[in-house]
């Protein structure tokens, strides 16, 4: 199996602070990988380096053996909700059409193929009836679907989803997992960053445990071992018998002895 997405010794630093250290990751064509790690582990940084937003200090990203910038629409990125200005005056159809801008260039008018791709993406996410609505009027789940539709309209080879399970309800989460099943049949390689170790372990064929370094990568059963989780989460992981409880709240407060009222815990049964 040839690796279609390859990160080689990827190192990214912000103002001298390391965010990613020598991450090497080979993802085979059509695979779906969950990227799991604590807050500040570099999950978003990893994605931003993959789309060319951050230039690595060392190492490189290759899609089909070539840098991402060389090709038309190889990688589509679905950002976290907080990164979008929801008051911006654009409709759902406007946003999804942006997915075609890579093919359209600066001034060429949308062709029939572009309009069809947009319509198909809207249908696939069941939001065709919202096409003319401003994005600010939508619910959280609908807003996420708009950006998923835009990513599909790009007809990408690699799809990056940044924390797609955060802040959506259970039905939106199931809908998204259903979409991933469909994409599996379409040979799109998918990387999903998430805090949700349960979903990562049960719904993905491959998982990567990240905390600046790549701690483990492979089938979930081999990745989510107590030793690996302890290494990734440090003081945030609590071992109770054969259970591992990971506290993922409040970066900066963790481990300094301050009790936090809003802590939410993700439990993971060690295999």
């Amino acid at each position, binding site marked *: 199996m040839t690796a279609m997405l390859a990160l080689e010794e990827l190192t990214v630093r912000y103002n001298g602070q390391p965010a990613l250290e020598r991450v090497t990751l080979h993802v085979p064509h059509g695979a779906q990988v969950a990227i799991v790690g604590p807050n500040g582990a570099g999950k978003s940084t990893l994605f*931003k380096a993959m*789309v*060319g*937003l951050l230039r690595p200090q060392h190492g490189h990203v290759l899609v089909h053996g070539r840098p991402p*910038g060389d090709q*038309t*629409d190889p*990688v*589509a*990125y679905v*950002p976290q909700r907080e*990164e*979008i*200005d929801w008051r*911006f*005056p*654009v*409709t759902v159809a*406007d946003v999804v059409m*942006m997915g075609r*801008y*890579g093919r*359209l260039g*600066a*001034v060429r008018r949308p062709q029939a193929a572009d309009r069809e791709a947009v319509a198909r993406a809207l249908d696939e996410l069941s939001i065709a009836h919202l096409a003319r609505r*401003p994005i600010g009027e939508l619910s959280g789940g609908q807003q996420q679907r708009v950006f998923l539709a*835009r990513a599909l309209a790009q007809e990408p080879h690699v799809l990056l989803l940044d924390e797609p399970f955060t802040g959506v309800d259970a039905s939106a989460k199931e809908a998204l997992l259903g979409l991933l099943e469909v994409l599996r049949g379409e040979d799109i390689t998918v990387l999903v960053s998430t805090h949700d170790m349960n979903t990562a372990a049960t719904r993905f064929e491959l998982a990567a445990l990240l905390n600046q370094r790549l701690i483990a990568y492979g089938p979930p059963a081999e990745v989510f071992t107590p030793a690996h989780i302890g290494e990734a989460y440090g003081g945030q992981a609590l071992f109770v018998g054969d259970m591992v409880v990971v506290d993922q709240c409040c970066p900066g407060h963790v481990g300094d002895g301050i009790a936090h009222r809003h802590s939410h815990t993700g439990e993971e049964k060690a295999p």
Partner: protein
Amino acid sequence: MIDWLTEPFALAFMQRALVAAVVVGLVCSVLGCYVVLRSMAFLGDALAHAVLPGIALAYLAGVDLLAGALVAALLVALGIGFLTRHGTVREDTAIGILFAAALSLGVLLISSTGSYATDLTHILFGDVLGVSTTDLWLTGGLAAAVLLAVALLYRELLLASFDPLLAHTLGRRPGLVLLALLVLLALTVVVSLQTVGVGLVTALLVTPGATASLLTQRLPTMMAVAAVVGVVSSVVGLYLSYYLDVASGAAIVLTATAFFVAAFFLAPHRGLVWRRLGDARPG
């Protein structure tokens, strides 16, 4: 009534003033939509004040004042881009530093020329009634160039403003696009100097766009509505200026402000009155 409407424009200088005010109202409003959406009001203000030293130097050197203004505005626009490029200095800090420095330099230079008070008033508040035919050609040419650039760069500006991450993903250069926007803003400020002056150009950039944002839901319609508000404000402002014998720049800006206040209270869905009524209705 017809006489009342045509009377002011029997005079040649009023005709030139009308053309200048309409052109400025149009170009400021259209570009102003990006100023509103990207929260760049402070930047627009800074660019406007930054032209002062350029004008003063041009005056001292005996070259065209608009050329001096243009060079100064471009230098400050690029300077802000340079200081904030790698996140070394926050944007509003960089703007504050360059804004104050340029304004001080301008005042310093103008005060050395000896005709401080009168010249400064013209630069600060504009003198649309003093527009010459040459000025008009220059204003029209620059405004046409800015509007053409906004049309050609529509997708690039939209991507860079709404979702720079997607722009990167698509292999675009949003950083360069933003630099282009700064240059367009500098050109627009210079075009507007004669009409509304350094002190009021920000209002013309921001107010029509803000009014339109209350009334529209898509960027193209927002730009169209802003353009109408800007142009109508310019024309109405000129009439007010003529019949009430008040400063034209201020009359134009206050007309635009009146449109904004009306939209703020009365706009469907987003106006204050509408929302109050909506709250009062049960369910």
